[in-house]
């Protein structure tokens, strides 16, 4: 009976893994094959493996520029989001002030608007402030769209930190500012890591805002760069796959680096 149960579980898990990892493996295989080979047989193994496609994409298809643009924009946005979001969440969770819940709800309610509704307005605002087609403009937009969710995740966590800890730090002589940096923030690290990963992945892959708000080749991010391999008549499938593989590396790195914290955050026990 036990064996049967375990085999069923194993089968289900294998199917799910195949389902989840299948497209990724397929894209990884395609990244090592040329478009001609792919057209001939969609699912063949990458033999011979064309590793030279990676340096080719990086150097001659301007990937190095897209990559550094993406890194600069996304890292700045994530940094601002983490600091501002954590501070806001700390205040919402910890201080009683008039309209606390109203403000919180107001900020959080903005997530109900789909990007298609706000994007024209954002475009106009950025043009007026001279931020259209700049990295800073995109960073500002990224911070604005991700802030509500960041605050929401962090506020829930901050609210669970026992208030005795803050009182103890106050008795120990610390100011509210110091308490945030030396008590709240370090204790909330698992939740902070969660938002870092989440924001990083979402923004790293973000396409819609980037395609509308950036036109200059020198400011393009990776998702826009990959799009350049899609022509009107012809798609360079092999190079798209190679581009995707390059794009995915930082996501894996960020996840690997923060996932320990993430698991800590999910399994709780961090506070008590």
């Amino acid at each position, binding site marked *: 009976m036990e064996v049967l149960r375990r085999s069923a579980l194993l089968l289900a898990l294998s199917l799910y893994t195949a389902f989840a990892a299948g497209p990724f493996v397929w894209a990884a295989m395609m990244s090592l094959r040329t478009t001609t080979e792919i057209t001939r047989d969609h699912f063949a193994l990458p033999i011979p493996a064309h590793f030279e496609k990676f340096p080719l994409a990086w150097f001659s298809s301007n990937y190095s520029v897209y990559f550094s643009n993406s890194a600069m924009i996304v890292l700045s946005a994530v940094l601002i989001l983490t600091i501002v979001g954590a501070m806001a969440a700390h205040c919402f969770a910890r201080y009683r002030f008039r309209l606390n819940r109203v403000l919180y709800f107001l900020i959080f309610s903005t997530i109900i608007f789909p990007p298609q509704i706000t994007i024209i307005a954002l475009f106009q605002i950025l043009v007026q402030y001279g931020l259209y087609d700049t990295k800073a403009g995109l960073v500002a937009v990224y911070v604005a769209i991700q802030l509500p969710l960041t605050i929401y995740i962090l506020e829930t966590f901050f609210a669970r930190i*026992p208030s*005795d*800890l803050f*009182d*103890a*730090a*106050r*008795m*120990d*002589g*610390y*100011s509210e500012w*110091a308490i945030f940096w030396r*008590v709240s923030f*370090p*204790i909330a*690290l698992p939740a902070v890591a969660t938002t870092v990963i989440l924001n990083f992945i979402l923004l790293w892959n973000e396409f819609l805002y980037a395609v509308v708000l950036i036109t200059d080749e020198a400011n393009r991010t990776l998702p826009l760069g990959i799009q350049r391999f899609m022509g009107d008549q012809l798609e360079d499938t092999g190079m798209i796959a190679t581009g995707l593989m390059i794009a995915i590396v930082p996501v894996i790195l960020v996840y690997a680096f923060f996932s320990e914290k993430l698991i800590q955050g999910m399994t709780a*026990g*961090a*506070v*008590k």
Partner: protein
Amino acid sequence: MAVVTLDRLSKRYERAHKPAVEEVSLTVADGEFMVLLGPSGCGKTTTLRMVAGLESISSGKLAIDERVVNAVPAKDRDIAMVFQSYALYPHMRVRENLAFGLRRRGVARPEIDQRVKDVAAALGLSELLDRRPHALSGGQRQRVALGRAIVRDPKVFLFDEPLSNLDASLRASTRQEIAKLHRRLEATMIYVTHDQIEAMTLGDRICVMHDGKVAQIGPPLEVYRRPASVFVARFLGSPPMNIVPARLDGTEDRLSALAGGGGFGLDGAVDPARLPADRAVLLGFRPEDVSLASPESGPRAIVQAVELLGAETIVSATLEGGGEIAVRAPRDLVAQPGEPIGLAVPPQALHLFDPATGAAIPRRAS
């Protein structure tokens, strides 16, 4: 070291229909161990938090060493507090928890290390300095919390029910540790608890609080022996003092309180001038002051339950004419439910209270 003076201290929360703390006045002398005792919701913790600076003061004056500190923030009052939940910083090791307050105060590194080491040695924490709080037992966490207060060498120590999360045996030993600590440091300490054993054993004086007000302040035994009201009488002691309605009878020097079908002789213990006009009173006596007598004459009761505790026997009984009482009897007592017992209480162990206000009717000065 310091004198802490609370002068008509009150705390009103917005939208609350009555104050959480109302005009509490008391002075904690230099080096005194003052216990704030009361049931939950009586305002004792709020009072303590006002002293700490964690709660704003609605009205009244709070002074430490004659300096009014109402507007001084918690961090500048030089007070240390031990919390009920210990409030150890979970992301820091024991060593850092102990040193955290000193670092903020700009104490030199080598001195911090030395003080942390000394306190850790005194509390038996030396082996645990590199552990994080989650790797400590409840008792160890409690000691770290104590250490964090001691290491700062503050003017005043505040304790907010620090033992309530410990199991019974650990509680007894930690209680003794705190008493020892007080003797060693000779510091001013204010200790909040709802546990009367902690209050009786630790306090130089007890301040019993009820409904946000001070019910009585005094040395533990005095509060126990001369409760100022029915509330204090019932709150201290386990089982609590027996309180039964009674009527006074007799002339000035031969006064007795009639209850349970007999008279409890007062033998001039009460000042007749202070008695209520209708002579109806509440009569109080502690379970341990009752001795069992023959049920033939005097006050009587019917045994309802007998609890054999080993060292003693607690008899619950119903007084003739109504009223539940408890009697602390010798362990060899043999009594069955339904059996009648006679009660005798020495006059000096009887307390009279005004039925309208619950206040004690003063005894004649002896």
